[in-house]
């Protein structure tokens, strides 16, 4: 693996892991928010 390929690969991994985690948080946030709304409606 050449240096520049390794640099690009490492950079891509860093971005993908961070964006993946943000995506996961947004999905979880939406689920919890809709659950909260359902609970408020059922009161």
């Amino acid at each position, binding site marked *: *693996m*050449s*240096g*520049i390929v*390794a*640099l690009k*690969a*490492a*950079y891509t*991994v*860093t971005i993908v*892991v*961070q964006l993946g*985690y*943000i995506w996961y*948080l947004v999905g*979880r*946030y939406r689920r*919890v*928010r809709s*659950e*909260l709304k359902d*609970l408020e409606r*059922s009161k």
Partner: protein
Amino acid sequence: MKPLYLAFIVLTLALLGFSTYQALVVAPTEQTMGDVQRIFYYHVPSAWVAGVCFFVNFLASAYYLWKKSLDADALAAASAEVGVVFCTIVLITGPIWARPVWGIWWTWDARLTTTLVLWLIYVSYLVLRRFAAGSQTQTLAAALAIFGFVDVPIVYMSIRWFRTQHPSPVMGGGENSGLDPVMLHAFLWNLLAFTCIGICLIVARYRLQRMENRVEAAHANLALEGGAR
């Protein structure tokens, strides 16, 4: 989303753009390793953020055991999860850097092994929180976090205590250590940007945890009301 938090996210994104420019364009190419050395500008800040997250997790867990504060528990959960994310980045970018420089992806030296153990400890912590049932889960998780944190100083000191494949400390490692001033400048910008990303993620995850606690409490109340009728 609160305006202050939104402003902080915008500031973080601007910082991230600037620090990436510093790392990839402004910082000079290292003579021995070449361009691959630029991985340093996000490998080391990721390790720093992971360490800070685990320290916050340690403090929040200790506070939870002392006061049984649910907010402290939420902060502990948030910081552990964000710490694992950054530790994962460290464990992936490290071998990608090692392959062209050392000729191997991985070796069982002190720094690499203790970092892998650290990652496994906090993944176990998250698995415990996710799958253990019962009222003692938070207490058990807090106890695990306090014992698990012992590995953080071991990871930090491993390259000072042992002769390892991993390089000695670049900064604060004795007479022959140190960075070129332009490299140091780029590194500090990246350190700041990654710290801000860590703060943004912890705040978001902390809020989410508190919302989940509210949902759980509301479900418990509904179940109690149902049982009382």
